[in-house]
């Protein structure tokens, strides 16, 4: 004979999840489906089913799509290379927790400065008459060239990439750092007693261990870079990326087209996530 169990206990969990899930459904999932529906509509006023929005995107913007993907891939790879030594150093070489925290905060602090502000802060660095330009002039003068025009890196691909390094560093360093924290550093010592040189150790052990972190970080950086529109606008001189395009389409109330473009981006990102999930079990890491 079994009385009905603690009903409240069964209710608690769903109730606890309700706020987060409800917000997701109302403000992410439902708008997504509406957007999906819109992407197949010819216009806002008299909606008829059509594929013209997608045709428009693919025909007019396929090269831009490719360029954006290339840019995103580039920054991802650059950030992997840049972040690995940092994460390795912090996680493994520094023993004191306090110093670890301090250095992390110092490196990542700019992340919490307003996006626009820290982007335009690059103007005095990249622009004509700025930091880079001034140094370049000094070098040129020292080498004997005296009538050199000041260079400006503004509105170039380089400036976008470097700005992105600063903007997205956190998203690559933190996942790798967290994963490496779980590695017992004595494994590396053990490897060296087995005659593995420094680089071999790094490759076989550290790299393999940090792999999940690299994957997670890459997913973040790639997805974020793909749709970033503020940086290309402010530093890139409006370099047309997907993000900028969608932003423009949105501003001009070309919503069906904007939605079609968004869906294409989403599909791309979902593919990236799906591939990543095969390599990494996020849930096992978190809980």
């Amino acid at each position, binding site marked *: 004979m079994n009385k009905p169990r603690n009903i409240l206990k069964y209710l608690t969990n769903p109730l606890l999840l309700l706020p987060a*899930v409800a917000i997701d459904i109302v403000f992410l999932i439902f708008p997504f489906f509406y957007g999906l529906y819109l992407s197949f509509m010819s216009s806002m006023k008299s909606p008829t089913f059509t594929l013209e929005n997608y045709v428009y995107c693919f025909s007019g913007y396929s090269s831009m799509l490719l360029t954006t993907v290339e840019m995103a891939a580039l920054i991802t790879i650059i950030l992997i290379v840049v972040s690995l030594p940092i994460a390795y150093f912090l996680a493994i070489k520094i023993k004191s927790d306090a110093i670890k925290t301090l250095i992390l905060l110092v490196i990542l602090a700019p992340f919490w*400065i307003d996006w626009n502000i820290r982007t335009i802060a690059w103007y005095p660095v990249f622009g004509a008459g700025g930091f880079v330009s001034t140094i370049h002039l000094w070098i040129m003068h020292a080498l004997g060239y005296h009538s050199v025009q000041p260079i400006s890196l503004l509105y170039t691909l380089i400036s976008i990439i470097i700005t992105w390094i600063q903007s997205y560093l956190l998203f690559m360093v933190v996942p790798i750092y967290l994963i490496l924290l779980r590695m017992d550093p004595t494994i590396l010592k053990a490897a060296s007693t087995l005659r593995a040189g420094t680089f071999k150790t790094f490759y076989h052990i550290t790299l393999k261990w940090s792999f999940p972190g690299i994957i997670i970080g890459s997913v973040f950086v790639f997805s974020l870079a793909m749709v970033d529109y503020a940086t290309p606008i402010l530093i890139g001189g409006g370099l047309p990326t997907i993000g900028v395009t969608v932003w423009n389409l949105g501003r001009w109330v070309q919503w069906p087209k904007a939605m079609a473009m*968004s869906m294409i981006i989403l599909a791309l990102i979902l593919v990236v996530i799906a591939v990543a999930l095969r390599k990494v079990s996020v849930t096992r890491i978190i809980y």
Partner: protein
Amino acid sequence: MNKISLLIAVYLGATIFLVYLPISHLILFSFNKISSLYYPFNGWSFKWYEAFIEDPAIIISLRNSIAQAIITTIITVIASTAAALAFRRRFRFQNPLFYIILLGMIYPGVTLGLTNLIVDVQVLNLPLSIWTISFTLSVWCIPFGLIILLMRFDPKLSRYEEAARIHGASEWKVFRNVTFPIIKTELIVVALFAFTLALGEVFRSTFVSPPTSPVLPVLLLSTLASYPPTPKYFALGTVIAVVSLATILTGGAIMSRRGGLLVRK
């Protein structure tokens, strides 16, 4: 420290240099006497600070930003704490639900903002307001909060709750007397995190921000996209930078008092 460590330390120094290069210029040129963002530096002046304080559009948008950030923080703390508490146990649909919540983190900001705008305008006929911004940003902030909490929760928390239950505490009493006091600090960390995230967010806010009284980042983006920046914005930026950094350092100090940054030891 061996050679490799030295190399990496130098590398670290270089990275920090790179990261702080623009910020140091930000601060420097905010004091520039003339309206130039480029060398040579012309002398010290506070006039840009006065300029932005006296700019009504900036001040109003700053107020909006703070109001919105507070609301977003409250929503995020409640939703992510509740979810984190739920995720400690196994239950059906645990993984799918986790991914759904996590989706908000990685979902393109442009799409999130735009789709919400469209829904508000077309479907709901809802005027844009601080509330529309807050809820939209919550979608993005909640996964951050969830992950921070799950990684920082004391693994013995469930045990304490069991002990409480056995000794006479009903569910609500367990939460009030045991769970909440123990997780209090983590909630503050999430709050600080969410606040700073929401304050500086621009990708999503741009679309769901009321056009006549936007939040600060949105105002800045539209202004700076159309007109070249002046040191006035650098002054504003410096103030924001100082406040943000202070907040994060406080949060970092709190977090590291209870074990390492981000991970409970």
